[in-house]
């Protein structure tokens, strides 16, 4: 919690009474997610008979590709107890940068690579401000959210840049040959495997969990807290830049407002995936299921002719629910403890009275 710094009244749950149910909670949360996924699919097939056809599944995954890629590094960042709200702005600025370079006569490949490099630099700025200057990541990334989007708007205020080579631009909209999988989701799945292994089966992953569970303890255990956090922000920037390239190719054009407000989706996926906002807990598997839920839900809502604005209501509610529900056990325990102590006091008072007589 310490680094989010924005909650007045909570000790991180990790430091509270030992959780005997630890692993059980995760299992149940992920089961809950699978049930929810079943629900959204049922809703989708109800809204449209073509929902589960391969073409539609292709479009579902196409729609969430970039969001899904950005959710992976954010997962690690949230596990360490930090947050990065600037991902969507880094996506937008990288896309604009790539298109500007291309417009100035750069070949497309170097332009794409430079866009990813720019993403890494933007992430490094976040990381520097958070780890070296010791600023709260929330404030820093709200600032850079505005700053990066503002720079994109300054560079490319009203125009759209397009005209990318068709062969390359089409990878944004066609599946990998002989399959129904879009390139972006293929990248996501490959990355998810890597992230899953790193987070759950390597010393680095354990270090990331340790940082989230208790930064001081992690520091005294010899973990390079600042260095790890810095590189996670760089990673977030890099993959956001990469997502920006994919986004630009998918729409075959760059605009400054590409992906505006997408941080809502990315944060929702991460928290819905069971990553604790207080840090230290969560699994990549949960995040993958959450991607599937958000993807099917959005497409199902669209198939049900619910306009995009109204879909934001659903996503926002999902975000709030996914932080309240994991916390509700805590609330219940606390309420019970309070009730008990009140009762004990009453007993004590009664006993004292009895003695007095």
């Amino acid at each position, binding site marked *: 919690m310490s680094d989010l*710094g924005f909650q007045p009244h909570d000790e991180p749950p990790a430091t509270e009474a030992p959780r005997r149910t630890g692993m059980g909670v995760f299992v149940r949360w992920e089961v809950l997610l699978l049930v929810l996924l079943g629900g959204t699919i049922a809703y989708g097939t109800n809204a449209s008979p073509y929902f589960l056809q391969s073409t539609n599944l292709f479009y579902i995954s196409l729609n969430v590709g970039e969001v899904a890629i950005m959710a992976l590094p954010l997962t690690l960042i949230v596990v360490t107890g930090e947050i990065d709200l600037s991902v969507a702005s880094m996506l937008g600025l990288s896309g604009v940068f790539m298109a500007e370079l291309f417009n100035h006569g750069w070949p497309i490949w170097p332009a794409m690579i430079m866009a990813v490099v720019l993403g890494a630099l933007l992430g490094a700025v976040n990381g520097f401000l958070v780890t070296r200057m010791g600023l709260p990541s929330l404030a820093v990334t709200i600032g850079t959210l*505005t700053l990066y989007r503002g720079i994109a708007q300054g560079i490319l205020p009203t125009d759209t840049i397009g005209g990318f080579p068709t062969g390359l631009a089409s990878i944004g909209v066609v599946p990998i040959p002989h399959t129904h999988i879009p390139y972006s989701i293929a990248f996501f799945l490959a990355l998810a495997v890597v992230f899953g292994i790193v987070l759950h089966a390597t010393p680095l992953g354990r270090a990331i969990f340790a940082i989230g569970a208790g930064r001081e303890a992690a520091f005294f255990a010899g973990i390079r807290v600042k260095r790890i956090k810095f590189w996670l922000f760089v990673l977030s920037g890099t993959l956001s830049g990469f997502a920006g390239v994919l986004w630009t190719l998918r729409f075959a054009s760059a605009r400054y407002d590409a992906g505006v407000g997408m941080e809502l989706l990315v944060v929702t996926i991460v928290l819905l995936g069971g990553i604790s906002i207080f840090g230290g807990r969560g699994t990549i598997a949960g995040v993958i299921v959450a991607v599937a839920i958000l993807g099917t839900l959005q497409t199902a809502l669209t198939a049900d002719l619910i306009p995009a*604005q109204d879909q934001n209501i659903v996503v926002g509610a999902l975000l709030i629910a996914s932080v309240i529900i994991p916390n509700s056990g805590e609330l219940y325990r606390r309420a019970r403890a309070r009730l008990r102590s009140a009762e004990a006091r009453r007993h004590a008072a009664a006993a004292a009275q009895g003695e007095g007589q």
Partner: protein
Amino acid sequence: MTAVAEERKGVQPHVSSRALAEMMFRFRELGIVLALVLVVGATTIDNHLFLSATNVQQVLSAASIIALLAIGETIVIITRNVDLSIGSVLGISAYATGELYVHHPHVPLALVFLLALGIGVGCGIVNGLIVTVARVPSLVVTLGTLYIIRGIDGAWAGGNQVNASMLPDSFNKIGYGTIAGVPYLGIIAIVAVAIATYAMRTFRTARDFYAIGSDPDAARVAGIPVGWRVFLAFVLSGAIAGVAGAVWLSYYGSVDAIAGDGYEFQVIAAVVVGGVAIFGGSGSVLGAALGALLLNTINSALVVVNVSSFWSQALAGGLLVGAIAFDRLIAVRVAPALRTRRRARV
């Protein structure tokens, strides 16, 4: 932080360190005023029309709305929370005000502002309840309500637009009227800032906000009802955003589903530039209002010196990041000085 704790006890053992801390706050407000003078001076040399009555009135009016919102945001940030939903609350309240006039053209002004206030309070209650009862970080809660409220606004408004012609003149006049050359909006903001400044310095409840932001655990131990105070901070922020919605409509004259979109970032930038610590526990409403004025003045100056107004968002973001980094550097520099002074007295 120490200043607050000491004030609560009513003893003043470290006069000099208090004076130093006090000076820093004054220094910040003076610094903003100085920056304002510099910006205005430099721009006026470039183009003397910058100080024309019309332009000054325009800057003042636009800054007033941000300054109003900044009052509420300051209170919330002082309690070590954040309210990202104010732009959406302003939007839905502005649209509701417009709709009310469309359907009941002769509704009294007081009722209109009461409706705007009510909508704001409602949104604030929702935010405050979720934050304090469910005990989840306000960042996540208000990020969610930002989109939920905007979504409700969008579903309600659709592609509709309420224009100035559908609004009575008495209402529009709030937006463009002036007294002795000062726009009504400026007067509203100045009065509101004055009241808030007085309240934040005087009332015990308001001092509790600072105590909570300085150290929530210590505040709880000291017997402050932390949950209630944080709840109150969100309700106040929502209420102000609601009223600001009606004011916004009177100034801009037309409202659709995207009114106030992205205002939260401008407001947070203004608050932080104005010296309110993002860690909570310190800062003043006056500083935040001056921050809003500075931001709007620079925006207006950019246009005068022929920088595209499309850069204004980058500017707000840059100032926000710069201000928190600057505050941090100052804090790192000043903390040892405060410590040595205290040791010297002991």
